[in-house]
């Protein structure tokens, strides 16, 4: 290695920052759409950490896990957005705190 490559811990730092920002967004937003977006950011940050680790060792495993994360994200978004539609239909709002009771 020639030492001019990208340092691993810088990538991981970016990943941590993205994760923290996503988490912050998750906690401060009340709109369900933004919450889903924050989840995407967090998943993406985790994926970045995996890919970086895989690249560090020169192995494909990181990218395999990235694909699995992608799958999870896709499934989650599909179901989550379906739920958003239902919430909007029933409560006429997207505020999480208004939809805090079970059985609608």
């Amino acid at each position: 290695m020639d030492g001019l490559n990208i340092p691993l811990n810088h990538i991981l730092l970016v990943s941590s920052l993205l994760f923290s920002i996503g988490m912050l967004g998750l906690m401060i937003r009340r709109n369900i759409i933004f919450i889903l977006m924050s989840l995407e950011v967090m998943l993406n940050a985790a994926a970045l950490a995996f890919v970086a680790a895989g690249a560090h060792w020169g192995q494909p495993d990181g990218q395999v896990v990235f694909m699995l994360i992608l799958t999870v994200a896709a499934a989650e978004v599909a179901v989550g957005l379906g739920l958003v539609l239902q919430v909007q239909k029933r409560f006429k709002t997207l505020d999480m705190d208004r939809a805090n009771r079970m059985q609608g």
Partner: protein
Amino acid sequence: MLEIVLFYIAATVALVATVMAMTRANAIHALIYLIVSLLAVAVIFFLIGAPFAAALEIVIYAGAIMVLFVFVIMMLNLGEKGDKQERQWLQPSIWAGPAILSIVLLIELVMVISQTSGPVSVTAVSAKEVGLSLFGPYVLAVEIASMLLLAGLVGSFHLGRRYLDRDNLEKKGGQ
């Protein structure tokens, strides 16, 4: 050298775009910032030798998933009133506590990360290698992922049916 510069630019773009996405009141604006952030992450993937991952990031994340968001936002038709309310919800008193928690977590993560060192590999891990390990040692994970996708498909289909509201449910239950 160029790689490193590009990396820092991409990282900066990703972080700024994410922050903007998290703080926008308008959902479409936030979504566009989010797409920018994802594209920047895709650049990082490419730079650290994961071209296949970068491509997937663009195609599936920035493409398919974000388009799904756009469709939903369009269907909801939020408008100006929603924006005003979003701004109202973004008061410092609301985000102060979570911000502290996030910063604490970040500090911890940084402390853990700072113990690792070393660069990432220059040699790219090609799509072929990824494909081989996917259908080699990780084949079970692929199966699970497919099940998950199927579940997501069924779930979203069920939730997305327009006629599925309470009245219809009761009618169906009564029959």
